[in-house]
Every structure is written in C-alpha cells, then in structure tokens.
C-alpha cells in the first residue's frame, strides 16, 4: 500500500467492513469526499448519514445509533472532532459509554494546504484526557486499513487518528496488531526512539542514520496512546537508559507527555521530545517540507538522540 494515502486505505477498508458487518454505519459532516467515507456511502447508502457541517450533532446522532446496537464510524476532520465536538464525545460517548468509533481524518499537519485552522495538533491531548477513550494512531496506510475491522470489534469508544496523506510505509499487510500493545520495529541498546503516526517512518530513517554513526537505537511504535503500553516503555527505559519521543502533534499532552508520565513514575531516565513546539504552524507547498519546518525532520530526531545520549 506504499502508493496510497492513509485516508484512501481507511476509506476502502471501511467499505469492505460494511460488506461483512451489517451493524456498521457511517456518518460524515459534508467531508465524505475528503475523508473518503464516500466509498462506504456508495455501497451502503441506507447505512450512511450525511449530517452536514455539524460535528457535535453527528457525535450525538451516532451515540443514539450506538444505543440500539449499531456500530457507528463517524468521519470528519480531526481538528473539529477533537475540539468543536469534544463535549459531545466526553458526555455522550465516553461517560455514557456508547460504542462510537471516531475516524479523525486530516490529523496533524497533513492538510498542509489549508493551514493552522485545519491542523489537529492538540487532538491526542484532548482525547487522551477523557476517561474511557481508546486512542489509536496508525503509522502508515496498511496499518490504517488493518485497524478498521479491529476497531469495529473492539468494545467501546475509539479515536482513530488518520492522516490526509500517505506516510512512509512501514508495515507489510497482515502484520500483527493489538490494541494497547506497542511494537518493537528495530532492536538496539544505546537508546530508544518512541514514535507514533507518520513519525514512525521518519524514525526508521533516523535510526538508520544513527546506526551509520555507530549508535544503535531501538525503535518502538506506540500506535495505542491510550491505554499506553507502559510495560514496553519501562523495559526500554531500563535496557537502553534514554528515550526520544516523536509525534506529529503539539509537544504538550501527546505521546511525549504520556511517555514522560510513565518514566517519571517508573524509571526516570533522560528523555527528549520531538513535536511541534507549542505554536500554530503555517501552510506549506508539500507535507514533507512542512513537517521538517515544524521541527519534525529526521535530522531533528537524530539530534535529539545525540542530546539524550549525552545526558545518560
């Protein structure tokens, strides 16, 4: 799936899921041609509901559907779902524990042409803080597709964070996924890179650069930010003694914060965090350059790795 975007992979997977699970319904907010929930809409028009530009209303309609046993996937832009509809998600999905699946597209800065209004750089912080929410961030298109049936089968609310774009392909189709279980993608004992989403691919490249310079970095993918795989992180801290986190998200409240919480309580080793440094990012001509500009470059990861090693 190297050649397709995460949203394309998701959209196709959702339509496939609809064919095997009649309980699945999809909702969108006038963005079905963007989120690509329209693949589902075309095949199952009786199970697709376009609510118009009304994210809060969509969340509540989905909660109502879930009360009667439907499995609603709600589709929209992450920035709006995580902010404008956050109260609805808290009250009617998390607190009421309705089985709503939130497919949050255009996450991070992946909508690079539209700018800061459309970027979602606080959604992981927003959603992670809600009791009862499970937060999942695929690293590439194949993984995004693989999560769709797993998320449907999972009992309870899920926030599935999707990029508009592609991401460096990491995973062969069919690789093992389990909610709450991080994955070691590369072994190493000098330090550990902990990455989520599109930064996983960039950390693969960073680890290769480091290796060429004689530094062996372990690479851990955290696809489930909540519940967090604390065991795997503490093991990495004990065995490698230094960590670098990397995420396409504000430096406050996301993966870096979550890892810092675990380390501070369980194994306080040096930690460096790669993320957006608490600012609104500009529009760009292409995503790769924009991400570099936002402090998410491969070089930034490499530099952070060297800094953290000096602190060991």
């Amino acid at each position, binding site marked *: 799936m190297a050649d397709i975007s995460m949203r394309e992979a998701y959209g196709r997977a959702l339509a496939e899921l609809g064919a095997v699970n009649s309980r699945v*319904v999809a909702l969108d907010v006038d963005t079905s041609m963007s989120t690509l929930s329209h693949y589902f809409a075309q095949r199952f028009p*009786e*199970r697709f*509901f376009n*609510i*118009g530009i*009304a994210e*809060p*209303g*969509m*969340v*509540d*309609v*989905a*909660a*109502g*559907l*879930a*009360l*009667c*046993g*439907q499995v*609603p996937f709600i589709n929209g832009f992450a920035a709006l779902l995580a902010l404008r509809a956050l*109260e*609805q998600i808290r*009250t*009617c999905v998390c*607190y*009421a*524990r309705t089985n709503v699946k939130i497919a949050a597209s255009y996450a991070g800065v992946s909508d690079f042409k539209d700018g800061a209004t459309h970027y979602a750089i606080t959604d992981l912080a927003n959603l992670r803080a809600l009791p009862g929410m499970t937060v999942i961030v695929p690293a590439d298109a194949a993984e995004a597709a693989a999560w769709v049936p797993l998320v449907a089968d999972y009992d309870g609310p899920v926030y599935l964070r999707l990029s508009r774009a592609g991401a460096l392909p990491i995973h062969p189709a069919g690789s093992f996924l389990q909610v709450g279980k991080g994955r070691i993608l590369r072994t190493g004992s000098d330090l550990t890179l902990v990455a989520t989403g599109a930064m996983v691919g960039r950390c693969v490249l960073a680890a290769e650069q480091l290796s060429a310079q004689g530094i062996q970095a372990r690479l851990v993918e955290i696809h489930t930010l909540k519940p967090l795989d604390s065991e795997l992180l503490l093991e990495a801290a004990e065995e490698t003694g230094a960590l670098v986190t990397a995420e396409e998200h504000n430096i406050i409240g996301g993966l870096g914060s979550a890892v810092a919480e675990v380390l501070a309580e369980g194994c306080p080793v040096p930690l460096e965090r790669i993320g957006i440094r608490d600012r609104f990012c500009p529009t760009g001509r292409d995503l790769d350059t924009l991400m570099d500009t936002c402090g998410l470059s491969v070089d930034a990861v490499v530099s952070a790795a060297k800094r953290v090693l000096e602190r060991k």
Partner: protein
Amino acid sequence: MKTMTPEKIAELEEIARQLRVDSLTLIHQRGAGHPGGALSAAEIMAALYFHVLRIDPTNPAWEQRDRFILSKGHASAVLYSALTRRGFFPFSELDHWGELDCPHQGHPERLKTPGVEMTSGILGHGVALGAGLALAARLNKLTYQTYVMLGDGECQAGIVWEGAVTSAKYRLANLTVIVDNNDVQLDGFVHDVMPMEPLAGKWSACGWHVIEVNGHLVRQIVEALELAQEMHDGPTVILAHTTKGKGVSFMENQSYWHGNVPNKEQLLQALAELGEVANG
C-alpha cells in the same frame, strides 16, 4: 387513539401530584436538585410513564421498548420519581440519593439507573440523540417510538437545531420532542435571557410538525402524543406551555427555584399546597 376516560384523567392527575411531592421531598432530603423544572414537567411525565410509553420495568433492556430521553437532565428528581413509581427500582434507594454509594447520580446516568435510556445533564443533546435512536429503529425494523423532553431555555443551544434539521432530513416520524415551555431559566425569564419566540415558527421552519398544548392538562398532552404518532412523514414537536414551579405558589415563575433547595418549612408549605398531609 386510546380513550381517555374521566377516571384515567383523574388517575394521571393524581400521579402528577405525587411526582411533585416526591420530587420536592427528594430534593429536600438530598439538599440539592432542581425543583422548578421538575414541577413544570409533572403532567408530561405522568402521561408518558403511566399511559403512553410501552415499557417493561421488569425488563428495562426490552428491545421493542419506547425510548425516552430527559434532555433537560437537571429535572432528574421527576424522572427518578416516575421510574420508581413505575417499578424500575425501589423508592427506598432514593432515600440515599446524593450519597456516594447511591447508584442514582445527580443527573441521570444510563449505566447506573435502570430505566434511564441515556445519560444527560449537559443541555442540548436530546434531539440529535433521539434522531440516532429513531434512525436505529428504522435500520433494525423496530417499531418503538423515541420521545425527548427539552426545556425551552435549552432550545438556545445550537446543537438542538443540528438535531432538528437532521430529524427533518430523514423524516423521522418515529421521533417526538416535547418542549417543557415554562419561560424560566437559571438567570431569569427565557424571553429576557435570550428570546426564543416564535419557538413554534422555528421548529416549523426546520421541518417539524408542531402541536401546542397546555402542558398541565393531561388530556391535551396525551392527545398530542397520540396525534404525533399519526404523523407519518416527519418528526413532531409538542410545545407544552407550562409554569415553572407549578403547584407551589412561592415557586411559580421564580427563576430562584430553578436550582435552589426548599428548607424544611418551605417543604412543608409546598407539600400542603400540593394536598399532601404532612406527617411530621
């Protein structure tokens, strides 16, 4: 339509009176709650829970049951009173309302109280939730009706209208909204805080059938609820004109009694006005 005999009307009126007595007693015992909007909704709740709703207290999860969402969740006292009198749980449980180990929360919570269809408390959710329940009935070929009660102040929340246009788009004839239209909210009169009139025109413009009734006359309420079921091409809203604090002279039309608690003396006066013989 079911025939409303004079005896049935008298029975529902008596239940409404009991719901008022129970609500005020519970709020007093707990030292917290919202009396005004519980009193204004008493006849509507009596009509729903003791005449209209197809529900089975011995089987709260019955798939075919009618769904009721109290969107104005702060009126939890009248909902709990109706549920316990209908047999969903023993009244004695409410003696502990407000204590940490009491299953029944300040505002309704579906996972803790049998018969509570949906968690509520933050205003505005009911219509869109109801739309989801009504769509689910259609998908699953179930014949249940979905009822939602809103406050008129609640109609100030924008999400109410997101739910309203969605319900109209999908022609959800199996959804009925009742607005407890008492013109009083926390800070004062609705017509001062943020005027919503013409409320009937707003709902009508959104594609809803509108029925207006006196919300303290059980015959009118029941007839409107039954008429709503005869509407097969779209959702219906019943604007039930009510008096906040109805039945207690010093509470009527007073925004103070939206969320304040009667002391012992006030409770006894209120119960006396409601025809309840005080027993100490």
